[in-house]
């Protein structure tokens, strides 16, 4: 039973990683930038969710508010930081992105305090279900359902709608897409908006899961997300989902097998480094490193 409990934890954490990292994958696929500051968007989403939920008494309203606010923040990052830096080597916007994340993290600490903020009422995290001896919390179910909805939705959006098809066309052949009347700049904004909203959802769910948002919430997750998108084959949404689930499970079981000599958070990086050395092109072979 213990092993099944670990699997439940691993899958739910993996689903959270997937929703969190997909924004990073989308940005990389379109602009070839490693958007480290995505973690600041994630953290902002978590803060907005908690603060609005506490002020209004409704967790749903908290999520809605964070989905409304974070896309603006993500688009502002693109417009003010990345767009002017696109002409440089790819490590230049990446270092700027790291700088922005460090800055935002300290800003969250200054504005909301070192101790972080918590939900006043969070019935969610204490509700658990029992399936034949396996305990599953409501929030874990919500995380998995969210991931399924998000990935199905993204799939339908990019295959069934005109905007989605234009988006995909811009990612693979920007010039040809532009000559068919797809505005590449609008696609970039759309990209940052969707990725940021999804990061906010993941942020809110982590806030519910831990019943706490502190300034370091985005920190380790952000670098793990980098590992995930590299493992997932860079720019591949499906690869991101697979890599996230694998990482969630490996971390979950890893804590009992290698926890004695390696920190849980270091496992992702061990996998990342090994993979980059053996297969610089990632699991699926799509894209190049």
């Amino acid at each position, binding site marked *: 039973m213990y092993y099944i409990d670990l699997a439940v934890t691993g899958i739910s954490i993996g689903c959270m990683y997937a929703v969190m990292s997909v924004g990073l994958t989308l940005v990389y696929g379109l602009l070839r930038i490693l958007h480290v500051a995505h973690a600041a968007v994630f953290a902002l989403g978590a803060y907005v969710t908690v603060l609005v939920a506490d002020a209004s008494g409704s967790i749903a309203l908290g999520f809605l508010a964070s989905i409304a606010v974070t896309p603006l923040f993500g688009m502002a990052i693109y417009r003010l930081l990345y767009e002017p830096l696109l002409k440089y080597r790819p490590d230049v916007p990446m270092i700027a992105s790291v*700088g922005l994340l460090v800055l935002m993290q300290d800003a969250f600490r200054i504005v909301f305090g070192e101790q972080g903020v918590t939900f006043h009422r969070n019935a969610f995290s204490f509700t658990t279900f029992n399936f034949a001896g396996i305990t599953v919390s409501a929030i874990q179910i919500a995380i998995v359902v969210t991931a399924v909805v998000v990935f199905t939705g993204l799939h339908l959006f990019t295959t069934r709608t005109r905007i989605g098809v234009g988006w995909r066309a811009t990612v693979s052949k920007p010039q040809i897409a532009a000559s068919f009347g797809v505005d590449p700049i609008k696609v970039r904004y759309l990209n940052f908006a969707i990725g940021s909203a999804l990061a906010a959802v993941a942020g809110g769910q982590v806030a519910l899961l831990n019943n706490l948002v502190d300034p370091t919430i985005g920190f380790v997750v952000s670098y793990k997300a980098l590992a995930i998108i590299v493992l997932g084959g860079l720019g591949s949404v499906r690869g991101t989902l697979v890599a996230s689930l694998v990482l969630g499970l490996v971390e979950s079981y890893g804590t009992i097998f290698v926890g004695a000599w390696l*920190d849980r958070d270091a496992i992702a*990086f061990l996998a990342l480094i090994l993979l980059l050395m053996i297969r610089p092109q990632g699991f699926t072979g799509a894209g190049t490193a």
Partner: protein
Amino acid sequence: MSAYEVSIISIVGINVILAVSLNMISGFCGQVSLGHGAFFGAGAYAAALAMVATASVPLALVAALVTGSLLGIIVGFASLRVRSDFLAVTTIGVNFLFTGFVRKQAWLGGEMGISGIPPTGLGAAGNMIMILLFAAATIAFSFYVSRSWMGFAFRAVGEDEGAAATLGINAGAYKLAAFGIGTALAGLAGGLYTFFTQFITADAFDFIFSVMLMAMVVIGGIGSTSGVVFAAIGLTLLPEAIRFVNNYRLLVYGGLLVLVIRLAPGGFAAIARSLVIRVRGT
């Protein structure tokens, strides 16, 4: 000189060595490393173990230098495999792996770190003078490398690997050399840090510290030894001089990093250079 001043000057000296050595890797040779703290830490731990075992200062320094450099050359092999931004990700990974590994090792003191490291016998002021001598030597070495054939080859590789290869420059060998030299100096700085504090924990070598070192290099002017030295001194003293900066250190470092990249990618060295040109009227 008060004990406070001695300790501040010692930290400045250590940070100068770290920033100048990172500049050799990232500035001269164009290989962005966001894990310099790991090599610094490897040197510090090697020196700590050597001091506890033998109490010999030269032996500890050699251990620090060799450990930093060995780890650096291993990581340097990554630079042969992956593109610039992925090298940056790999080095971030190395930094997290280093702290994650050290925290779990009983023989490295785990979370508690290593304490009770024997003193060098030089006293605080003696240590400070030793640190400053090494810092001066590092700066001189950096100027020397920058003007040597090796410095030329580093810049050629950093600018355009393909073009460097057509000139007969073995890009891979020079990248490894840059990593080997830069991380040896970081290891040395780690040894000096161990002498200075006599107590080390993994937290001192975390990723945030690596970002602060990169901030010094970028703000000073990536590739410019004098710019980086001034930035290292300035950014180390700033939090001591201004209370506000001390409380909001990361906000200031991160903010400056973003502003400099966005508005003056050449850093303060480029600003100073253009001012000189304007004053001379050429």
